[in-house]
């Protein structure tokens, strides 16, 4: 029973150990933080996209909801940042609950509706009339509670949580039921699966992870604007990482985010124009030749991908 979780849990342990010990040898903590952020976001997106097939282009909406939920909890309610991160996660879940009816749409229609929803949330948060609550377009300042190390290890906790969630789904009957829904909702319900309930749970778990990420990011960054935490780049990066690595596994999104985010940092920051060219080409090649990601190459070589 527990044996089948073994490969997945090994991956979780290796990644956790990596980010626990790397700061001792490598002093660019901000790079490591962002790397963890995208690893966790990739696993969060994997929960909804990888397992149920819904591609949420507005995934950043949950990230922003988490960042603002936590920031408001800290600035207005004076809650400790650590607890505020969890509140941020639940703010994203609340956003997810409001958006549950979108799951009745499918394919591109769902992706577009979700994108629109995230932008609507962005406009609400950035509205100057809400300045007393969200500071409107003027941004949030959390420098009073700034603590880089605490923020770093909170993010590590979020990452471990996200990986454990996916490890559970990769190896459990619940994950199997979601894969069944992805393939054929009628067949899944005739196997006795409550399709609406199962996909709603996956949706909210996915939102929760993005909300925790947004909240941890807000705390670690200390000063941010609506345009930072509702930037579509967050959605696009996360989606590309997941597609590149391979869906519905623990390791796939991790491989994608590790490789591509490192590349972004080495090419993208020094020569951004080449980076965009490279990314564009990469997406084309992926869609044409490797739609199931790096993990599919490993599978062809009969390698089990945890």
């Amino acid at each position: 029973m527990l044996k089948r979780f073994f490969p997945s849990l090994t991956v979780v342990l290796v990644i956790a150990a990596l980010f626990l010990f790397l700061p001792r040898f490598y002093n660019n903590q901000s790079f490591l933080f962002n790397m963890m952020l995208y690893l966790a976001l990739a696993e969060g997106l994997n929960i909804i996209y990888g397992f149920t097939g819904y591609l949420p282009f507005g995934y950043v909406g949950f990230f922003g909801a988490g960042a603002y939920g936590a920031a408001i909890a800290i600035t207005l309610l004076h809650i400790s940042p650590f607890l505020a991160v969890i509140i941020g996660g639940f703010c994203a879940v609340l956003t997810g609950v409001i958006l549950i009816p979108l799951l009745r749409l499918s394919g591109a229609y769902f992706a577009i509706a979700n994108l629109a929803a995230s932008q609507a949330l962005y406009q609400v948060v950035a509205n100057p009339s809400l300045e007393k609550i969200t500071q409107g377009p003027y941004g949030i300042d959390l420098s009073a509670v700034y603590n880089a190390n605490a923020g770093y290890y909170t993010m590590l906790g979020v990452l471990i949580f996200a990986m454990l969630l996916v490890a559970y789904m990769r190896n459990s009957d619940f994950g199997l039921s979601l894969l069944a829904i992805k393939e054929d909702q009628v067949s899944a319900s005739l196997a006795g699966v409550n399709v609406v309930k199962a996909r709603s749970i996956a949706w909210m778990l996915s939102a929760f992870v993005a909300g925790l990420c947004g909240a941890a990011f807000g705390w670690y960054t200390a000063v941010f604007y609506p345009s930072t935490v509702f930037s579509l780049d967050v959605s696009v990066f996360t989606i590309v990482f997941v597609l590149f690595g391979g869906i519905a596994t623990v390791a796939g999104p991790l491989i994608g985010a590790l490789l591509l985010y490192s590349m972004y940092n080495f090419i993208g920051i020094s020569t951004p124009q080449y980076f965009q060219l490279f990314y564009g080409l990469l997406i084309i090649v992926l869609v044409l030749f490797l739609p199931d990601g790096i993990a599919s190459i490993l599978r062809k070589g009969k390698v089990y991908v945890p």
Partner: protein
Amino acid sequence: MSHNSKKLLRVEGLVKKFGGFKALNGVNIDVCQEQIVGLAGPNGSGKTTLINVISGVYRPDGGSIEFDGGSIYKFPSHKLVHKGINRTFQVPKPLSALTVWENVRLAAVYGSSEGNPLETIRDALEFVELDNLKDSISAGLTFAQQKLLGLATALATKPKLLLVDEIAAGLSHQELNWIAETLLRIRATGVAMIVVEHHLGFIDSLTSDVVVMNAGANLFRGSIQEAAQHEEVVEVFLGR
């Protein structure tokens, strides 16, 4: 009264509309426990629609459906599965990315609360003789094997009523005999069935109780032999 209490399924005046078209226009059908009822009729007479409504794939627009003494009108599929109704499809719909074992496992875990899932999966696969293919990805199965997988998946949810939609279509003569024998073995374990079929010889080998539908309503109920003497039945099948 005692006869009524044995009724497992009772459908009365069932209506299903698609836009202005009534695919089912007041259908009545009932099935007793452990009984096999054949369902025949020309193309477009509403046989598959009836199966789709009883199994919750479509929602009805009127009439009543009672199962095991309670109404199941407008129940979603997964609830009907838990109540003890399941079905197979004319064109099998296995979860093709999953293995045979995973397909049946899903049904055993989510479809039935009784018994040990491992035993349920093993029994279902042995029943349809797919146990040697349990680790194959179901997309790679033959058409006939996918039909058997559909049957095994349905059995794994421990149904009291099994709706079998055109299982004979596309199978060889030899496979047909074996399937008929398998359906009779399933009935012997206490499962009632509605068997939709074009192949009247196949129905005849299963039951002497046949319902003939035409234009979304019942036309006749009796044996195949009686049906062959029935003027209207002959007319809808062969034309005037």
